[in-house]
């Protein structure tokens, strides 16, 4: 909606090709490790000949600067500089390469500099040009112009610019184009909410008399499935994002656990209709059409890669809960959590190469990651508290999870490299079971 209102000015600024192509500044977020670059978001300036910055209504320029800074702080490969880090003061002196005093930023070990230039706009907040420069080469990495009709659009402008900046540096900007559904506790009830990965645009999706658990997005981000426990029954809930309608349905058996979407858009879910929880696939009318995994024990928590070939799930067939991988083409199933005695909540990366799950270590859960090609397993998080329910971002770089590290459960963000977890603010109340979907 906002996207439509926002007038993206013709790319009057040169949109640079990804830096990786030029081979100058390139952050390989998928490699074995990653470099960190020092980023500084400069205070806004008035566009040449546009009159004083004070003509821009409200606090829009400062708010946009703060939003871009806050957004970029979510990215572990940025080390955020503040004004006091800049030798000789933070004012860039200009907003285009010719007039920027790059020397002092270089002296301050600043790698990427973001500038903003505002001009008033009749009937709106203003027009802003945002640029990111590589300080060492003075090269423009990203340059975009936006018309801002109201101050409510500031977060959207910041997110779109940051998506472009991240994409230019890493080849991938979906972090700012995705959202996270999660469970929020409200008294004795639990409801489903959603927000952007930065905790913005918080929306309440359900208002049910009971407990809503285990949200999961369809691969296209248009449908959300969850389980709802009322006073007597388990129900499957399907929320349609386009129509904002909620469908609630009882299924065969007494117990419904952890729905997930297949590549084709069908729901896979555990049902106990044959006496214990097994994993079934439902068709578009929510009728059981296929058994995906059946065993004497518990089989729950399916998750699928983008190709639709691989399914990870939890089973206690060997005595304790462990993570298994099923090749849906060959039907072959194998255990992939190699250590520990309690491994649950797996999420497979969209490209199907890595699986993250929670392992109980000394009574608390920690995230572990298995690299499927090599079979290597390593611990990603180290507490304190419990880290549970990991979910991959659509770009396969970030991992969101629920953690009690600072008290009641909240949603945190780390990466496949195990970067220091960052809190995603979701307001008051316990938050758990994040599910990452496309915007």
């Amino acid at each position, binding site marked *: 909606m906002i996207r439509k209102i926002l007038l993206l000015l013709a790319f009057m600024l040169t949109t640079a090709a990804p830096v990786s192509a030029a081979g100058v500044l390139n952050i390989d977020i998928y490699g074995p490790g990653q470099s960190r670059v020092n980023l500084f978001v400069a205070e806004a300036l008035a566009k040449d000949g546009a009159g004083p910055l004070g003509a821009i209504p409200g606090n829009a320029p400062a708010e946009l600067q703060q939003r871009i800074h806050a957004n970029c702080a979510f990215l572990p490969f940025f080390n955020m500089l503040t004004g006091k880090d800049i030798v000789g003061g933070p004012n860039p002196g200009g907003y285009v390469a010719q007039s920027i005093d790059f020397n002092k930023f270089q002296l301050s070990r600043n790698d990427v500099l973001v500038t903003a230039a505002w001009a008033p706009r009749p009937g709106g907040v203003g027009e802003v040009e945002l640029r990111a420069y590589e300080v060492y080469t003075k090269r423009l990495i990203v340059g975009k112009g936006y018309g801002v009709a109201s101050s409510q659009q500031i977060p959207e402008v910041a997110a779109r610019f940051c998506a472009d900046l991240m994409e230019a540096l890493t080849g991938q900007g979906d972090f700012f184009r995705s959202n996270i559904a999660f469970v929020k506790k409200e008294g*004795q009830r639990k409801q489903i909410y959603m927000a952007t990965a930065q905790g913005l645009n918080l929306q309440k999706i359900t208002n049910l008399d009971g407990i809503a658990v285990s949200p999961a997005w369809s691969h296209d981000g248009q449908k959300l499935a969850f389980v709802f*426990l009322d006073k*007597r029954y388990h129900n499957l809930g399907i929320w349609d994002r386009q129509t904002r309608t909620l469908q609630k349905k009882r299924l065969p058996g*007494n*117990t419904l*656990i952890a729905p997930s979407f297949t590549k084709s858009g069908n729901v896979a879910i555990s049902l106990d209709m044959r006496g*214990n929880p097994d994993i079934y696939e439902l068709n578009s009318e929510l009728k059981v059409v296929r058994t995906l995994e059946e065993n004497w024990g*518990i089989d729950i928590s399916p998750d699928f890669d983008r190709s639709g070939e691989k399914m990870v799930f939890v089973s206690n067939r060997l005595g304790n809960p462990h993570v298994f991988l099923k090749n849906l083409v060959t039907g072959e199933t194998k255990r992939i959590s190699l250590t520990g005695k309690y491994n649950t*909540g797996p999420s497979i990366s969209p490209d199907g190469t890595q699986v993250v799950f929670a392992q109980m270590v000394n009574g608390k859960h920690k995230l572990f990651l298995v690299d499927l090609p090599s079979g290597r397993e390593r611990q990603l998080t180290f507490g304190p508290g419990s880290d*549970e329910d990991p979910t991959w971002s659509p770009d396969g770089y970030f991992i969101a999870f629920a953690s009690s590290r600072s008290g009641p459960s909240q949603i945190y963000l780390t990466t496949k490299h195990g970067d220091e977890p960052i809190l995603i603010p979701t307001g008051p109340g316990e938050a758990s079971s994040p599910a990452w979907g496309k915007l």
Partner: protein
Amino acid sequence: MKKLGVFGLIVLVFCLAMAGGCSKKVSSTPAGATAAGAGDGSGAQGGLTAEQLEAQRLAEIQRQAIEKIGADKIYFAFDSNELTQESRQVLTEKAELLKANPALSLLVEGHCDERGTNEYNLALGERRARATYEFLVLLGIDASKLQIISYGEEYPAVQGSNEEAWAKNRRAEFKASAN
């Protein structure tokens, strides 16, 4: 809160099942007592027939059975759905009560402590409720009278993060109702 709600529902269902409402029963009890004392069972005395008195007596027995069945929970070890000897004894008593009150049906709730993860605990709660259900069927209870539900770790009986609280939360609860 939830327990009160369910209990209230049970009382309501029970009252509706009776010929009269709750208020009538309460107001007519002294008269009924007098009538029972008369003991001839020949018809209307003090506003209640012998059939009504008998229904009242049975309803009281049923109410006590519902209360007794709901009173004792059974408990499980960590990540286990095995019934202990003590649990089997408790279930045997419940089975006797159910047999003596064939109008009752039973909801078995499976619960877990907070240590596991939510989804696995929903499965474990199902295993606990089902193990309980299967033992009751083995004792001769008609399966159509039984329903199970897993609540996982969503409704702890006791708050707290210590073994004492966890032990009380790894449980099955019982909600009997007449219908």
